[in-house]
Structure formats: structure tokens, C-alpha cells
């Protein structure tokens, strides 16, 4: 097995430096991605079965309230009614459509569908990292960060639809990496129809569809993970980054960009138009204006490193949004494994401190929320402060991740003589 990343004089990234276990020892335990996926699948099936048991036998239900809303809307749709007759149903009619088997086969059909998407996200994470030539062990650990993350495996098994959105977004990234702009556009239009928040990704995607990287008939060239430490490669990109921005403004209407915009716009409008015609549904417009500044800055700074840019945007969006719920965390958890191989953060103690601070701030906030809702105490002021503390925790984690991240553009320029260093590391 290649150990090229061990030969660097630079300190190796955190995940290849796990305490007390050397990489060669791990290689002997032949866990591969297939076994991981099987294990995750079995674990999720067990959780779904347990969830059914808990629903029937305990006061507190395992299933999310939203799942009951989807199921009701789906059964309304099955009997020919509008799913919006169900109060608090605010999703796309597509979701209700996919859950129609809930009334026909078994009420847990939706949970299995969402958990399957959950597994699909794990597969996609692995694929994306393989495409960027990340070593197998790092790919696996990154996939583990999603597959065995307690936030994420409970989301699907409790009946939340977010894993479907995550799977679509990661598939869009895969399409872009492989140069399938048309397919990426189609899925992007669909995902924005499904959930409005991915609209924040439109600018970085458009920016990365640069004619320097994308040309018809040619597959885009990806930068390797192993060349992330290469100063010359990055500095040349850095110099041209600013130049590229001007060129991008001039060539803003490149063929790929126009195609992407038209196709995704068409898909989005036809889905929305069709459902508006059928159900008279109106959009939920989120007040995006006050997020705008932060989004623009992050895009300007990080667009070339697409997964990192999307991750930063998503965390910033969730942290500053006026409504925060645990299911929104899934939006950036599916992108976190994509940036970990480029992070220099060590688990001890920086990584651990980020995790503990983030979870600690949440638990603190939840505690006050519990006292207000279930004990009836007037703790509005404390709850508000806990919310601000959580914002501070998110800011802290964002700053830490940014400081420890090795900014690595995804694509190489086409039609240029390959740099010697890049060839060596291939």
C-alpha cells in the first residue's frame, strides 16, 4: 500500500495520526468500504425496528413529528387530495409522492428510503474523495465521520428527509468533478425545488464552471490530494486566481455556465410550476438578504475549493439563521468528510475541543429549552443567551476549521502543459 503521504516532512494530517495505532496495523484489519456500508445498513435497520418498538411502548416517540406530517400528506395524496391539506406540511409534493407506499406497504417505508439515502451519502463521500485521489484509509475514515455520526444516523431513522437532499448535493459535486454539467444542472434544479437552501451554492458552482477548467469534449482535470502541500502548484493558482476573477467576469457567459443556468432554472421552474398548477402552492421565502454579505465574502474567497466553500457557506447559513433545528446540521455534516483529508487539525486537542465546545453549547441551549417547555419556568433571557453562546461556538469552530484547512482548488487548468510536480505525485 502506498504510504506517500507519510514521507512528507510536514506534520501529517490528523486522521493518519490516530493515537496508538499505526497505519500498517490498520491495513491488516481488512475493513473496506463495502463492509462499512453493510455494517451501517444493518445498524440503521436495527434503529428503525427499535424506533417502531419505542413508538408503541414509550411515552416519548422515537419518530420525528415531521414524519407523521409527511405520512399524512402522502395518504392524502394517495386518495387524490392535495398534500397541503395537512397543516404544517411545507415540503415539495415530491416528498409526499415518494412516501405513498407508507399507506400501502408499511408505515416505515419512508424511514427505509431516508436511511438508504443516508447510505448513499456515505458511498458518494467515498467516491468524491477517491476521485480526488485521497488515500483509501483517509477515504474510509471520512466516510465513517458520516456513517457513524450520531447526529446523522438518527436523522434518517427518525424519518427526516434531509439525507435525500444531502445525497443530491453530493451527487451534483460528483457530476461536476466528472464534467457532467448537464446532469449536475438537472439535479441542482431539483434540489433547489425540494429545499430552498441550496440556492446559496449557485454562485460557487457558476464560478467553478470556468472555461479554464471546463471545455466541451474534455473531462476536467482534478488536483490530487497528495499535491495539496505543493507550494508552487498552489501559488501559481493563487496568482492566477485574482486574474481568473477578472477573466471570469469577462467570460461570465461561457457555454457551460449558460447551460447550467438554463437547465437548472428550467428544471426548477417546471417542478414548481407543475406543483403550483396542481396544488396552488406558494414558496416559502426565507429572508436571505441578511445572509448575503457573509455568503459573498466566503464565495469570493473560497470558490475554487468547492467542497470547502460549500461547507463554509452552509455552516455560516445555519449559524446565522433565525431558526435552528438539529436536522439542519445534516446539511453540513455531509460536506464535512469531504474537507477532512485537507485539514491539519489534530484530534487531540484542537479537534476534540471543537467537538466539545459545539456539543456543549448545544446541550446548554437544550437545557434551557427543556426548562421552558417542559417545566414551565420563565427562562427566556437565559435561553436567548444560550442561543448567542451557540452562535459563538459555531463561529469558533468555523474559525478553527478555516485556520487549519489547506486551501486546495479542485480543478486543474485544461490545455496547459502539466507541471512537473503534479506529474510526480500522480
Amino acid at each position: 500500500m502506498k504510504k506517500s503521504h507519510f514521507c512528507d516532512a510536514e506534520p501529517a494530517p490528523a486522521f493518519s495520526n490516530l493515537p496508538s495505532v499505526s497505519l500498517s496495523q490498520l491495513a491488516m484489519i481488512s475493513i473496506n468500504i463495502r463492509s462499512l456500508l453493510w455494517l451501517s445498513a444493518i445498524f440503521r435497520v436495527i434503529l428503525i425496528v427499535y424506533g417502531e418498538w419505542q413508538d408503541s411502548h414509550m411515552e416519548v416517540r422515537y419518530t420525528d413529528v415531521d414524519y407523521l406530517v409527511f405520512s399524512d400528506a402522502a395518504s392524502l395524496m394517495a386518495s387524490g387530495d392535495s398534500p397541503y391539506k395537512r397543516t404544517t406540511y411545507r415540503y415539495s409534493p415530491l416528498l409526499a409522492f415518494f412516501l405513498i407506499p407508507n399507506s400501502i406497504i408499511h408505515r416505515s417505508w419512508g424511514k427505509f428510503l431516508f436511511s438508504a439515502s443516508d447510505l448513499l451519502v456515505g458511498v458518494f463521500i467515498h467516491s468524491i474523495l477517491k476521485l480526488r485521489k485521497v488515500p483509501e484509509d483517509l477515504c474510509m475514515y471520512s466516510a465513517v465521520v458520516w456513517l457513524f455520526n450520531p447526529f446523522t444516523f438518527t436523522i434518517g431513522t427518525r424519518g427526516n428527509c434531509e439525507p435525500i437532499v444531502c445525497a443530491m448535493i453530493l451527487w451534483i459535486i460528483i457530476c461536476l468533478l466528472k464534467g457532467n454539467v448537464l446532469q449536475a444542472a438537472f439535479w441542482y434544479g431539483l434540489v433547489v425545488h425540494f429545499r430552498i437552501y441550496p440556492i446559496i451554492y449557485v454562485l460557487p458552482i457558476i464560478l467553478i464552471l470556468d472555461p479554464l477548467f471546463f471545455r466541451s469534449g474534455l473531462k476536467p482535470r482534478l488536483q490530487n490530494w497528495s499535491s495539496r502541500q505543493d507550494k508552487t502548484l498552489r501559488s501559481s493558482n493563487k496568482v492566477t486566481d485574482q486574474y481568473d476573477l477578472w477573466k471570469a467576469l469577462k467570460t461570465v457567459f461561457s457555454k457551460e455556465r449558460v447551460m447550467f443556468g438554463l437547465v437548472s432554472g428550467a428544471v426548477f421552474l417546471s417542478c414548481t410550476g407543475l406543483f403550483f398548477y396542481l396544488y396552488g402552492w406558494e414558496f416559502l421565502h426565507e429572508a436571505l438578504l441578511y445572509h448575503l454579505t457573509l455568503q459573498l465574502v466566503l464565495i469570493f474567497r473560497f470558490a475554487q475549493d468547492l467542497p470547502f466553500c460549500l461547507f463554509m457557506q452552509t455552516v455560516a447559513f445555519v449559524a446565522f439563521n433565525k431558526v435552528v433545528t438539529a436536522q439542519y446540521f445534516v446539511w453540513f455534516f455531509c460536506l464535512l468528510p469531504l474537507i477532512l483529508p485537507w485539514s491539519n487539525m489534530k484530534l487531540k486537542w484542537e479537534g476534540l475541543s471543537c467537538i466539545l465546545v459545539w456539543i456543549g453549547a448545544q446541550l446548554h441551549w437544550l437545557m434551557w429549552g427543556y426548562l421552558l417547555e417542559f417545566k414551565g419556568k420563565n427562562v427566556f433571557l437565559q435561553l436567548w443567551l444560550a442561543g448567542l453562546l451557540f452562535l459563538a461556538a459555531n463561529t469558533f469552530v468555523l474559525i478553527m476549521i478555516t485556520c487549519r484547512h489547506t486551501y486546495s482548488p479542485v480543478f486543474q487548468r485544461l490545455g496547459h502543459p502539466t507541471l512537473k510536480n503534479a506529474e510526480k505525485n500522480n
Partner: protein
Amino acid sequence: MESQHVRLCIYYKVAILLMFFSAIGIQVGRCEANSDVNYNIKAFSSSKKYLMTSYFGKYEKLLDSNFEEFIANELRTSFCEVLPDNTSSVIRRSVLLRHLIGEGSHRNLLSSMRFYVDPKSLSRLPSHKCELIVIERLPSGIFADPFELQHLHQRGVLTDVAVFGDTNLELPSFRSNRSAVEIHMNVGSNRLLSQKDGLEIKVQLPLHARYQPLDESGYSQVEFGDPDLFLRCCIEGKLQNQSCLFIPTSENAERKTGRAVWRIPSGIKSHGGFVSVVTFVSAFISTILIVLTSFFCSDFKTCNRLKCS
């Protein structure tokens, strides 16, 4: 790479099939597992059996004055023959218990009532099948979840239950209208009613609090009025037609317990000013920090430990 991808896809499909078959194989849950998937919204549709349907057919909102007028005048025309006014001699009611169980925003309203029917009046009528109708007019700021009640109904706790009025779960109390819960309970034939000790009924209703308007004390007190009771007896064998009787219970109920009061936390207006300012400043500082970090700290090469920490 490609073959591995293909293999992954195949395994993924097998996993889906496995889950599909285990979904079919799962038989966990109550015997009525499949039936409660279909929350039948049509159960709430207007039918002659609900009093409140007629009320909301005539009036837009639930107001006490309108409701009393409805009971006095409309009942007779909309439904059935109401027994003569001197019902005080026919029925006596005594409220035994009116209590809120639980803490916080989700509580149960426990009511226990006993009512006595004068056997002489009842014996004049042919054998009836009687149903007790309890109408709980919820105060502003409290709501009942129709789906939760439907769940109770399916577990056999209540014969029939419906929620009328504003059932929007998300609006605060000053933006929503009052709602009412109508519960039907089977009490058997009128022969059973004319027992000496009368009939005792117990109702436990799960209720939820809305966000309250601001109050300097930090809490809002919400008081529950007494429920309205009606006894509807239909002639044996003929349901839902004109030949049934309404026997409204008397207003002068004997009361053995105080009214139920719910103390709900509310915001304090004087906090509003500094909350806005501090929130804005915090958001502003966080934004600035993230922007600065993006520009000065994102490249590992240019950022050493000293700069970042």
C-alpha cells in the same frame, strides 16, 4: 475504479432490497398499526352529529356571547327538540374535579363530573340511546392538537372527538382565535341514567400552550371555564334524525373544586431593547471574525500558530 463503482452500486441495490423485505417483515406495533397511518381528515368533516359544526356554520369565531346565544336559540332549530326549560329539575350537575396535570407547555386537563337525572322526567320518554356531549371551550392561548386527539380516539379512549376553531399550532395567542373541543361519550340507555347516584364521567384532555403576550410579571394566568354538557338521547334504532332530544345541563352546577388555572411563562417587554442590541452586536462581531479569518488565516503556508491562536 469504475468496476469498484459498479460493484458499490450493486451492493447498494442489494441493501435496498434487503431493507424492503425487512420492512414487509416487520410486524412490530399494535394490531391497529395500519389503520392509524391514515389519519382520516374526513372524520372531522361536518356532519350533523357535531354541535360545533353548526356553531361555526353560523359564527366565524368562538365568542362566549355568541355561544350562549347559539345554545339558547339555535339548538332547537338546528338539532332536535330540547326538553322544557325547567331543566333544573331534570338534571343536576356537580363538578368534582377540574385540574391540570403536568408541567410546562404540555399538560392534561382532568375533569370529573357527576350528574343526576330526575327519573320521573326520563321515564316519560321511550327507551333512548344516550350520548353525553362535552364541549370544552378553550381559553385564548391554549390549543388542542386534533391529530393527538384522533390518536386517543383510535385507542378507544373516547367515542368521538373533534376540535373546532383555530387549530394552527404555530401562531402565538394574540394572533390566533379560540378553539373548542367537542367530545362524545356513550352513556348507554336512559334507563341507566336514572340511577340514584347518577353518572360520573371523567375526561382527560391533552392540551398545549401557545406563546403568550408580554407581561411584566413574566407569567400569564389562563383560567379555564367549566365545560358545557349536553345529553343527546336518540330513540332506539333511529340515529341522526329528528326524533332525538337534547337535554342541556343546568348552569347552576354545584362546584366542589376551584377553576383550573394555567400559569404560562411570557416575555418581559423591558428586556426587548437590550436583547435587540446585544443580538445585533454579537452577530456583527461573529461576521467580522469570520471575514477576517477567511482573508488572513485560510492558507496554511501564510498562517503560523501564533497568528491563528
